[in-house]
């Protein structure tokens, strides 16, 4: 029942590679992962950027690893997500324009 509900939501349906829906799904996936990392408090570990250990208890290796995950997800969230959303919008507008041109061509063909 729950699966059926999610499948009915267009955004969660499997999309064609690099289609507008695919790009939006990727943007949503990155945002979700970043939100999880943020809520898990990984931001604190970014102090390794200036050579300060994120947590004395966690040690250098784990602190560095958690910082790396957070930084990559953050950069993906602020740089990649807007690009994916913008690209999806561009694709949608482009597709609408192409469709409109196609319709008017069919209409004019039919009239002639």
């Amino acid at each position, binding site marked *: 029942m729950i699966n059926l509900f999610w499948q009915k939501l267009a955004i969660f349906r499997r999309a*064609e*590679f*690099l*289609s507008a829906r*695919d*790009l939006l799904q990727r943007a949503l996936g990155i945002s979700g992962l970043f939100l999880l990392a943020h809520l898990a408090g990984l*931001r*604190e*570990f*970014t*102090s390794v*950027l*200036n*050579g*300060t*250990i*994120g*947590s*004395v208890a966690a040690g250098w290796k784990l602190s560095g690893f958690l910082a790396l995950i957070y930084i990559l997800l*953050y950069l993906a969230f*602020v*740089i990649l997500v*807007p*690009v*994916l*959303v*913008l*690209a*999806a919008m*561009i*694709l949608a507008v*482009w597709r609408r324009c192409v469709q409109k041109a196609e319709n008017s061509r069919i209409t004019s063909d039919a009239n002639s």
Partner: protein
Amino acid sequence: MKSRMAGILAGLAALVVAAAIWLPCLHLVFTRPLSDFRQNQGLSPKARQLAARHLQLWTEPARREQELKKMRASNAEWDFMGRSYLVWSLANMALRDPASKPLYLRTMDQIIDETLRLEKQEGMYFFLMSYAKDRHYLAQPAHSLFLDGEIALMLASRRAIEGKPEYKPLLTERVNAIVERLQKSPRMLLESYPDECWMFDHCVALDAIKMADYLDGSDHSALIRGWIAMAKQKLVHHDSGLLVSSFTTDGTPLAGPEGSSIWMVAHSLQLLDEDFARDQYQRARKELGAITLGFGYAHEWPESWKGEANIDSGPIIPGFEISAGSSGMAFIGASTFNDDKFLTSLAATLDFAGFPSRTRGRLKYCASNQVGDAALLYAATLGPLWQKVKTGAKP
């Protein structure tokens, strides 16, 4: 198959166009008016928030202990410098926000007293990196100008806001000792570490001497002039015209010009020789400062000098050669010389890549640490103290 390939190509083209639109606009999300970071009068919102977090650290010992432990795991100097920058910031804040002066003075006294206690109890090595013990200081008994200069400037800054009789002999004693050692040294160069002298530490110490003159009516202007003349002649990197960062007691450069040092050096020089200070800032801005897509940052070394990443430079981000240490200290230079464009772009980078974290009106940058945040607070508040000393207005 053909239409699928066309779809993928259309997707790629859309991604390229979207990136071309978004990347030049990204800085707009993080760029705030300069008044958000620094104001000519009063305190900016960021200064208040950063200060609130530092004041909390000095009222909650357990939290402070935790922060210091993290920093000391890398560098004991940071523990010390975090104290210095906070005291110097609080002095400027007391002049900017007189209503909160009692709180600021109380905190300054608490920091100074604890620092002096630790220095006395644990010895000077407590605030130095461990390699200080690897060799003997050439000048005996051993002194570190790093500690003496910054402590003297803390004491002087406190007294410049409001006199405190207990601190007068402490300042006089420390300043006289520095002056005496400078006069005895054949090249007027004093060690911070064994046979390792730092431009940063000399400039801060000379600031303290200048402030002692202002407070107590002594006159060391000839000594200060002489030292600056010597530095111009012997301690300037030929290609960039920038002062070198470190050198031996006979004046042989150890490191060339470095961003983690020169921005603060230019700020310190402003109290001693305004024209030379501005010249050093402008050279540093040209050689080390950069703005890309609206984000400001700084390199650690000019093109004409190759250095290795170290504890002061912080990690160097390849490609753009961004140094965390130099970029952080660039705030102090840009704020001192009212380089508003550079300061605004640096602040945009800070909000983009510094990972700000706000809790109940308190701000910290997760990618920074206590000393980094204290230096940022100093950049957001500096000005009134130097102005007061330069105009000769009495405390």
